[in-house]
């Protein structure tokens, strides 16, 4: 169990690091996927070792996969629009979420 959780924590941290530091929006989206999967691993792990008689964690993981796919669709659509508007997908380009 410890190994699984360590793996998940590492994945999550890598994802978080990616989200914060990547300039490229596509990169940010990919890092987000890493974080989702880290969470998935956690769910599955806890289900396997703590709530052995249920499938809640696995089902939740599957839901997250589905939602992540939907989220990726929406995110890519937004990226497309951003590209059309700014001729680029650097997240610095649209640093307009203030005031």
């Amino acid at each position: 169990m410890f190994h699984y959780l360590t793996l998940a924590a590492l994945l999550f941290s890598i994802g978080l690091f990616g989200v914060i530091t990547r300039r490229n929006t596509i990169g940010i989206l990919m890092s987000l996927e890493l974080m989702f999967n880290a969470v998935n691993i956690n769910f599955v792990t806890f289900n396997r070792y703590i709530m052995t008689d249920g499938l809640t964690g696995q089902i939740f993981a599957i839901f997250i996969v589905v939602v992540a796919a939907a989220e990726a669709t929406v995110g890519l659509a937004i990226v497309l629009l951003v590209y059309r508007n700014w001729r680029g997908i650097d997240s610095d380009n649209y640093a307009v979420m203030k005031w």
Partner: protein
Amino acid sequence: MIEHAYIIPLLQLFAFVLIVFFLRWREPLSAACSIAMIAIGWVMSIVVLIEMIGCHGVAYEAYFYLTAFASLNFEIGILVDPLTAVMLMVVTTVGGCVVIYSVGYMKGDPRFSRFFSYLSLFLFSMLGLVLANNFFMIFIFWELVGLTSYLLIGFWFEKKVASDAGKKAFITTRIGDLGFIVGLLLIAVYTGTFNFGEVFDKAGAGVIPAGVLTVIAVFVFCGAVGKSAQFPLHVWLPDAMEGPTPVSALIHAATMVAAGVYLVARTMPLFVASAEAAMVVAVIGLITSFIAASIGLVQNDIKRVLAYSTVSQLGYMIMALGLFGYDSAHNHHSAGYVAGTLHLMTHGCFKGLLFLGAGSVIHAVHTNNIQEMGGLGPKMRTTAITFMIASLSIAGIFPFSGFWSKDEIIATVQHHPIFMFFTLVIAFMTAFYMWRLCFLTFFGKPRDQRKFDRVHESPRVMTWPLVFLAFLSIFAGWVALPWLHHGYSSFVYYGEIHHAGPNYLLMIISTIVALSGIGLAYLIYYKQAISADRLAERFKPVYTLLYNKYYFDELYDLILIRPLMAFARFMWTFDARVIDGLVNLTGSATILWSDIKEWFDTWIVDGAVNGIGWLVKQCSAVLRFLEPGRVQFYVLFILAGIVVAALAKFEGAFIAARWPVLSAICLAGLLVLGLLTRFAEAGQKEIQAAADAADMNAEGQEQ
């Protein structure tokens, strides 16, 4: 038909409304409408009169209550008795003739239709006045008559004299009306009703104290003095001659001026109950009659002579009525009531004819001055003959209608020597000035050849009414032939029937007086046996006094108008200086106060609001560095928040002990972070700009 008599005035009102709203631009139609309505009214009046005679003069009264004020009822209703029936007859007859005559006289006038609408409105008011059954209603119509007479006298308002004359007539009669309204209020106070019958019953029964009754009667008589142009309010009538001549005929012969006489006759019970008031009436009538007749002797304006003649004849009627009241109060028999109302009727006919004849003459000669006329007789045969018939009638020559009514008046005054003397003198003067007029106008040589050459007889529409009225001038008085046992005196009477029978002595005296007046006029103005100029020279002071109408206008100007004007001017100055000053001061004070409030608003109230805004803005200027606008920073903040939350969870005590320091460190860190990003951004922009410039160069090189 008697119970439908109210339709007669309403028809005239209908004509007025119709002309004003629908027929204004169709002149023949509006005249036709006016004529048709008065014609229907005339026929109805005849029927009313016949029915009245048929039922032996039993009065008919119908009314409903309009409204009540306290215990005072305001009624609308009609009262038809012999007096009313006769008045209806006179008004519709003369009115009808005048309306028809006006078609010719007003031909080509730019306000032709308006003239007929006014005539109809006037006839409505006059007929309403005659039919009214209470003081309240009679007062309303009284004022309506005043209004329409103002409109008609000032009809040619482009002429200053005409509009001035209209104003003079209106204001002068208003003075009398003031007395009238005081009388009405006194009646209302003392009897609590306006109805003629009830008021007279109470007056006869002694409900009103004798002194008050006298005051009431005199005040009511004031109204008659104004309307009937009695001394001292007679000054408006001669000036009113500035109106179109048909108006003069209508207003100053048969109707408006008759209203005053009618009022005295109608309110006779008040005068019978108060001998003093009746004596006032008689004396005023005599003075008026004498003054007006003497002024008439020397005037040169044909219409003014007729106007003074009218005033004089009205004075006759008023005097007869006043003497009747006086005699009745002392339980003497008197013919005054019959004489006054009969003379009102015959005078309406022959004076209407005289005015219409004068109008015909003026229409032909285009001047009012009789000194510029002369010799018109052969050229205007109909006008001349009818005019002379009327002159004979007014002079009181047997057997014209004026003879019979004047005979009744003389019979009234026969027991009062002073009145008798002056009445005969006035009769002499009347005959003289009327025939002076006739001789100067129709006989002799033309004095102004240029005007004479253009003279022609008036159109038929104007001469027919003349002929009709001439017919009445001869025969209207015959209803009162003293040999008739059921004549006028047993139809229109007050109290009990008093039938005197013929008095041949009086008839002979009055005929002699009239003939001598005509004879003197004949000698002076036809034969020129006595020079008029020499006479004027001989009696120069008297002549000047008469020629200037006893200086009444100048006297009123001096004692009334000038002080009034001075007072008005003083009030105007007072207004301009004091009242306006006060108003302006208030205005300035308000402006000053508003300025203070504006300053307070701008600096204190707005200042507070703006200050708060400014403060918030300054605070946010600092805080906004925390909002760099980059998604990643927000994520970083979330992470930091989670770390802090985790620390709080697991190292709560440690943080709680040092939270000020820690939070300060956190804030400072955030600020530094924000500032850093700001600088980073700026640097990035420079880099970007450099890159862009490079791109541009590259593109430029490519091209």
